[in-house]
């Protein structure tokens, strides 16, 4: 019952986010600030993780190819498929649930605890539109970060497998081109857009409706990370079934 109530409250929050808009001259600056904080501020960790995970995926694939009948270009193929289909859109989003999600929940939660949200509401400002809408718009730039993650994941795979002596650059590149379906990129970016919305709204919900003090802000951040990850994984399954299933 508690969960059904929370889901209902979440959708009512979304409705409120898109009503009574804040003046554009103010909103414009808020959006630019959020793009900087949420997207550009996450690029460092995203670049680091993508490169090394891509490398590990390639090395693991190479190490598990025991049969001499398997062509070496399979390493490039497997790296591309893993990175484009799952690692970049899904697992990066889960990492972002920790980084961006915790930031959103704790910043909005602190505003709740210190009565800053009450101050906005007393002034007649739609606090949800003011605080959450710029985050949703900023996260529309999230696919840009994911495309960087894809590129660096594959680059990491190339570095791991070629510099590690598992395959040649030509074989790896050949593997990258085998059976390439542009639809997989479309599938991947569709997921990314949906995850971006989830990443902006679920942590906002947990921050906005939290009660208590500083300790509860920490708890809300943890809960927000758990639920954002759970929703991303469930949606990943549903979208995959819908777009790639037969």
């Amino acid at each position: 019952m508690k969960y059904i109530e929370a889901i209902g409250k979440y959708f009512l929050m979304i409705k409120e986010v898109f009503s009574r808009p804040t003046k554009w001259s103010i909103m414009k600056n808020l959006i630019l600030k959020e793009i900087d904080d949420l997207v550009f501020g996450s690029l460092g960790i995203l670049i680091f993780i993508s490169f090394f995970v891509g490398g590990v995926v390639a090395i693991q694939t190479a190490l598990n190819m025991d049969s001499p009948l398997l062509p070496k270009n399979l390493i490039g193929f497997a790296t591309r498929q893993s990175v484009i289909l799952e690692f970049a859109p899904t697992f990066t989003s889960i990492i972002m649930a920790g980084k961006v999600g915790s930031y959103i929940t704790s910043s909005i939660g602190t505003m709740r605890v210190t009565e800053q949200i009450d101050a906005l509401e007393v002034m007649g400002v739609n606090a949800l539109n003011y605080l959450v809408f710029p985050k949703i718009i900023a996260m529309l730039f999230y696919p840009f970060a994911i495309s960087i993650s894809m590129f660096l994941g594959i680059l990491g795979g190339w570095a791991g497998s070629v510099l590690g002596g598992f395959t040649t650059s030509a074989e790896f590149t050949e593997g990258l081109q085998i059976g390439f379906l542009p639809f997989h990129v479309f599938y991947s970016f569709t997921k990314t857009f949906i995850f971006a919305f989830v990443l902006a709204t679920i942590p906002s919900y947990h921050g906005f409706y939290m009660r208590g003090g500083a300790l509860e802000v920490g708890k809300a951040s943890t809960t927000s990370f758990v639920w954002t990850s759970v929703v991303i994984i469930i949606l990943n399954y549903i979208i995959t079934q819908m777009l790639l299933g037969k």
Partner: protein
Amino acid sequence: MIVVEDLHKSFDGTPILKGISTVFEKGKTNLIIGQSGSGKTVFLKSLLGLFTPEQGAISYDGVSYGEMDDEQQRKLRQEMGMVFQGSALFDSMTVEENVMFPLKMFTNNSKREMRDRVDVVLKRVNLVDAHKKFPSEISGGMQKRVAIARAIVNNPKYLFCDEPNSGLDPRTSIVIDNLVQEITQEYDITTVINTHDMNSVMEIGQKIVFLKDGYKAWEGSNKEIFRTDNEAVTNFVYSSELFKKVRQMYQEEKN
């Protein structure tokens, strides 16, 4: 003027406000006092429209809040200024940006006009060198003054203060009390202050509403509060040793 009639509010089935009726007059500092848990904050937040009462009505200059549509309620809120207990300043903004915020939100004034207005109100609260500082870089008393400046920058009709002296030393408390009273008279606004500070009661309590367990137990002025025989009020007022001695002296004088 704010008129409250038979106000009831409960949370999870527990009644907090149990039929409060009173009038808060324009140009006066109206105080809501009572012990912790007596319903003061819920009452103040109901006056602000943050809580919807289950029964009763609140009228602002003759217009009932319950009968206003969303647009009218929003407009009314823009006529309200609020000073929160913890100041509630936006910590990512400077003092100047905090005070300018309501102007940016609800007026189409030029930047120059907004800056001039901010200068006027910051000067009015005796803060002239803090424009570019962040709330974390100024003292609690200064934060309260910024909060007052933000509350009055848009020329409100109603000013609400939740425990404005909380966390301040007695000297700064008096400065804040006097500032609120002067602003109330100067701007001719309806001010409602939620407090349990007896110094404020003595200094600026032109109208006092005493709450006990969600009921209005007494109302009067700072001149009357020390003469009342209402037991709930005397228990509250004379709970400190200082005021017990004052009462003793008063009774000795009387006898």
